């Protein structure tokens, strides 16, 4: 059945008002959209990070559904344990309802310290959906670099200095790494259009077995971004092909969107203070050029995987 926004707006949200994430932060937007179309009851687990600390400040709790957090690197293992208990208790008739399991981890908790636990959970084939809300850095602890941080970004552990222009390395392609686990559902998306996340997460949750969704969510505070530009910056990430949206369903790669024009990566950088230094001097310019080259190569790879071609308008 097609999802209609009209039907969803009145639905009770899994995560409610009163959380303390920054106004304009992309993470709560992604969480709200993700859980909107899921019809079954859900149990949530989250890795340590901005989302977790800001939604569960004792004695308050923004979650209207069961929620577990235990540490930073173990959301994959936690969701495995919950699902294992569910399977065992359901068999014994001690749990009767059909329940779905969704784990949230930041990019730090997913790309870096939690990758092993996630990989293990995917390999074992538990029935869960893991959502990485990717704000491209360790934001909860003050914007340190992660392996999802873009090349050239100014971070607190890879700062833009007199000699080194921010983070040197390009980000890890985690979505492809998860696709290489040959799990039934993998997707990469962002919050430029609500139906994107709503539909993809619904598909992920309804797919039996492991599913992984990587959602780019702006951190307005440390991207140094005007909060009202939350949606706009995500759109630019897609238009510049820095963050293409696609799915890998049972091994079939499906490109979600092809930009009509070749939009240079600078357009994504310009509204964000974390890239400001790249526009001052030659060193920055060469980072921008290298970045563009990485993006073009990544896009070629994706087109090949999806069996697509691209002819942008001049």
């Amino acid at each position, binding site marked *: 059945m097609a999802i209609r926004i009209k039907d969803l707006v009145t639905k009770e949200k899994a995560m409610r008002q009163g959380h303390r994430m920054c106004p304009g932060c992309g993470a709560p937007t992604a969480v709200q959209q993700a859980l909107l179309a899921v019809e079954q009851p859900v149990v949530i687990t989250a890795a340590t990070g901005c989302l977790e600390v800001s939604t569960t400040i004792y004695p308050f709790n923004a979650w209207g559904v069961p929620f577990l*957090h235990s540490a930073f690197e173990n959301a994959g293992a936690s969701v495995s344990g919950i699902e*294992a208990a569910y399977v065992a208790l359901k068999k014994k008739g001690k749990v009767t309802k059909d329940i779905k399991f969704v784990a949230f981890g930041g990019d730090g908790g997913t790309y870096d310290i939690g990758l092993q636990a996630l990989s293990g959970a995917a390999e074992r084939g538990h029935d869960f959906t893991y959502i990485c809300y990717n704000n491209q850095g360790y934001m909860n602890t003050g914007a340190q670099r992660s392996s999802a941080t873009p090349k050239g970004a100014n971070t607190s552990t890879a700062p833009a200095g007199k000699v080194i222009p921010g983070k040197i390395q390009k980000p890890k392609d985690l979505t492809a790494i998860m696709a290489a686990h040959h799990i039934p559902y993998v997707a990469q998306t962002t919050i430029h259009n609500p139906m994107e996340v709503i539909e993809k997460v619904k598909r992920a949750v309804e797919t039996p077995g492991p599913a992984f969704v990587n959602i780019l969510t702006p951190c307005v505070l440390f991207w140094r971004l005007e909060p009202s530009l939350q949606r706009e910056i995500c759109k630019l990430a897609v238009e510049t092909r820095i963050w293409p949206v696609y799915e890998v369903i049972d091994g079939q790669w499906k490109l979600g969107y092809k930009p009509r024009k070749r939009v240079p990566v600078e357009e994504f950088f310009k509204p964000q203070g974390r890239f400001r230094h790249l526009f001052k001097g030659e060193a920055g310019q060469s980072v921008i050029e290298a970045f563009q080259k990485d993006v073009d190569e990544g896009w070629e790879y994706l087109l090949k995987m999806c069996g697509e071609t691209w002819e942008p308008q001049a």
Partner: protein
Amino acid sequence: MSRKDITSGNWAVAEAMRQINPDVVAAYPITPSTDIPMRFSEFVADGLVDTNLVTVESEHSAISACLAASVSGARVMTASSANGVALMHEIFPIAASYRAPIVFGLVNRSLGAPINIHCDHSDSMAERDSGWIHIYCEDGQEVYDTMIMGVRIAEHKDVLLPVFVCQDGFITSHCFEPVEFMEDDEVQAFIGERDPLFPLLDIDNPVAYGSLALTDYYFEIKRQQVEAMKHVERVYKEVAQEFAKKTGRDYPVVDTYRTDDADHIIVIMSSAAGAAKDTVDSLRERGHKVGCMRIRLFRPFPAAAIVDALKDARSIAVLDRAASLGAPAPLFTEIKGALYDAGIHIPTNTYVYGLGGRDFFPHNAEEAFMDLINNKMSPEERYLGLRE
């Protein structure tokens, strides 16, 4: 009804787990505890248990999955040693704080370096402030019995804390000896069903585990754990009494051997108590009034029972199978503290023995006893069985 069989400490744990039939086991192999998940996975493969066995990719994930399954409402067990225990360290205090009644077969092994697979207590001693109940066992029978009692103690509503059931790596875990097993239905009747409080899977009554609690609430939450620990000794005694009635096997919090009229007492833990007790017998034959006290319940520390057994001794030797580098050894520190609080001053020697699996012989125990008998007392740490 019961049956006797020749088995190892590890297999005794696995057999207890088969009879307990937990909902979830998540485990990762490490010597010397590997036999436990290996044996148990055979039970799973043969359909002898209903357990959902999660063969995780690390010990960190093992304990994380166990914690998640436990708060979900499942009865959960696992096992590990040394590096595995150390890798789990981060999650232990969290499990205690979430009041997750996990029963854990801990097979003691030394922590590196040098890397060494043999027994000492450095792994579990490093977890002594983690908020778990610690029970140290002398032999395979006791390990088996304690796994079963452990379920009842951990899940008791006044306790709700995870429990380590410790045994000595190789010495107990791999030694085949006669063990008397209960019948499956007796075990089931003894442990009953788990009736979880606030399970995560109760969709209609949602709860959140793992909140952020800062300067305003953290302290109060920790205080509740202190309170829960205070209930352990009472619950332990109730469970042990009921168990003794069923099986005839009695397990007080401290195991005293010929201490009643003893002038000199060795305090020790786990398998080495065997050599110490033998030495008590041979020294008694030679006219020395000596005794041995083995600490079974280490966390919470049963200070009153310990003081009661030690109060009339003229001198004491505390033997630790772990060192606290740069400070007095852990058991020694606790014993001294207990005596001090009771206003009792008894000269006490401190010895470290058996690190990295170094054998502990009756002559090592005799050396410690002779120091007491010959009044060679000193607060300085000494070593038994060490080449200096």
